[in-house]
């Protein structure tokens, strides 16, 4: 199957969308986590990976209350829980269940093995104190979140050197579903982080508005102009391409394509490019950010949200950036509180996503009432109802977990508030596993060779010119203007 055909499968319409499913899965996990505050610990048996030298000590359970369960048993139990939940989801999505179960099993074990590999002490240990503690004299100092990069690289190897395996896995390669569940859960994690520093959190939200302006009004207009005037694209191609490069990748390209009544294959072809370039960005930008922006952590976080397209890749890039910058700061004796850099990336991305439906409606209105007015029948003109139809529902999940988490942190009795971080910490373990699945899936979808063979050079050229000549640098400048000088609080 070609990358184009693969991408095309993502636009079929099942009984329920991955977007809505992600909200329900995320909210269900969040609810299970909250129950542990005043009831039984329902998630404490999930597997947790520690930095290790001896593989036998790598795995354990999240909660001490389940320490009787061995690490291996916790991993198998975690796999089974994910398998059950996602197989039910696959049934709702009308996927081939036998293929899904087999493929997901392989996806889960490869992805989690990558995560364990990333926690190897020579890869993950950061501070001199930890080097001493583990009795080692060198480390790549990538933190245990190096597991994300390992998962991505393994996925890329499979996509580019074992295409038959990549094709066989495709039923369980669902980066959109995985990252959206993770983002819903991230809302609660960010709420707990933000509760201690409301001034800073509100400042971040305010600055997130700048991201909306930049993505929709600045990026889009410039990329549309470049693709129309410099590269001679038709309107039907230029609009989805501009949305794909400017806003949030695949979802925006498909929403715009639908809104302007483009042929379905046009945004799908654009999407295949978006995924590949997003992978390139994830592999490069976090390391650039660590090198040049470690003194401005939130600029780096916002930059990931503005520069990397597709929700999965952007939030994943924010996760790697946070790990790398916290590691570098820790080496210098500065211990920033975790969560702020990733929270900034997610906030920027969520803010951008909120307006996809409105932007698609505006474009649809212009296209069907002005540009293609003569060829568009009255019944096919843009309708206001499309705004809700194209609204990414997982954002509601993110806002819900953020609001409930923040509400509990600020207004619940002290006894409840004290237990909240541990409860959300357990849901965060689920979030991390969905992150790893996302990284691996993005890698498996990125067959560079196939893309070049398909003759999409001109599309790729617009992408390269716009992304590396404009989007990345303007994103950096705007991130600097709005986030420079704002530092995450120190841990403890």
């Amino acid at each position, binding site marked *: 199957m*070609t990358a*184009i*055909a693969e991408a095309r499968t993502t636009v079929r319409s099942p009984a329920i969308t991955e977007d809505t499913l992600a909200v329900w899965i995320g909210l269900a996990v969040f609810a299970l986590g909250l129950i542990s505050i005043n009831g039984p610990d329902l998630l404490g048996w999930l597997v947790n990976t520690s930095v290790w030298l001896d593989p036998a000590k790598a795995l354990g359970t999240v909660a001490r209350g389940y320490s009787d369960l061995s690490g291996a048993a916790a991993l198998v139990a975690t796999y089974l829980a994910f398998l059950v939940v996602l197989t039910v989801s696959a049934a709702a999505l009308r996927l081939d269940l036998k293929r899904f179960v087999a493929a997901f099993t392989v996806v889960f074990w490869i992805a989690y093995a990558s995560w364990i590999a990333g926690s190897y002490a020579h890869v993950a240990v950061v501070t001199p104190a930890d080097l001493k503690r583990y009795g080692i004299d060198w480390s790549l100092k990538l933190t245990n979140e190096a597991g994300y990069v390992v998962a991505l690289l393994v996925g890329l190897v499979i996509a580019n050197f074992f295409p038959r395996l990549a094709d066989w896995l495709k039923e369980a390669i669902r980066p959109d579903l995985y990252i959206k569940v993770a983002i819903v859960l991230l809302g609660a994690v960010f709420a707990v982080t933000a509760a201690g520093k*409301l*001034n800073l959190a*509100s*400042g971040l*939200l*305010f*600055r997130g*508005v*700048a991201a909306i*302006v*930049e993505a*929709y*009004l*600045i990026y*889009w*207009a*410039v990329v*549309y*102009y470049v693709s*129309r*005037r410099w590269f*001679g*694209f*038709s*309107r039907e*191609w230029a609009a989805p391409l501009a949305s794909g490069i400017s806003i949030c990748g695949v979802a925006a390209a498909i929403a715009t394509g639908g809104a302007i009544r483009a*042929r379905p*294959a*046009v945004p799908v*072809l654009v999407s295949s490019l978006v995924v590949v370039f997003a992978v390139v960005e994830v592999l490069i930008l976090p390391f650039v950010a660590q090198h040049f922006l470690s003194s401005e952590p939130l600029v780096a976080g916002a930059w990931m949200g503005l520069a990397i397209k597709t929700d999965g890749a952007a939030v994943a890039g924010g996760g790697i950036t946070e790990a790398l910058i916290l590691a570098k700061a820790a080496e210098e004796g500065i211990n920033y509180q975790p969560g702020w850099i990733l929270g900034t990336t997610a906030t920027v991305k969520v803010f951008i996503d909120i307006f996809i439906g409105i932007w698609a409606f505006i474009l649809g209105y*212009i296209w069907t009432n*002005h*540009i293609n007015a003569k060829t568009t029948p009255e019944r096919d003109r843009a309708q206001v109802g499309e705004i809700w139809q194209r609204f990414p529902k997982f954002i509601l999940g993110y806002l819900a977990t953020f609001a409930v988490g923040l509400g509990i942190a600020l207004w619940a009795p002290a006894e409840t508030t004290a237990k909240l971080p541990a409860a959300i910490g357990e849901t965060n373990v689920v979030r991390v596993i969905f992150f790893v699945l996302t990284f691996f899936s993005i890698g498996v979808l990125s067959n560079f060779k196939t893309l070049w*063979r*398909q*003759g*999409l050079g*001109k*599309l790729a050229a617009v992408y390269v010119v716009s992304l590396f000549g404009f989007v990345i640098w303007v994103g950096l400048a*705007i991130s600097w*203007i*709005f986030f420079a000088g704002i530092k995450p609080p120190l841990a403890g």
Partner: protein
Amino acid sequence: MLNNEDRALVEELASPFEPLLPIEKQLIAWSLGLGIALLILLAALGHVGLGQL
């Protein structure tokens, strides 16, 4: 490899340039103008501390 439909779509990319219509020029100009103006406004509001609780 591409199927026939996809190949036809890709070949379209080499089709002659469609001139920008006035409505497209307006869309680009308004987007950029409004975007730059809003960014300046937001930067100014942030500078005076309006983004803090």
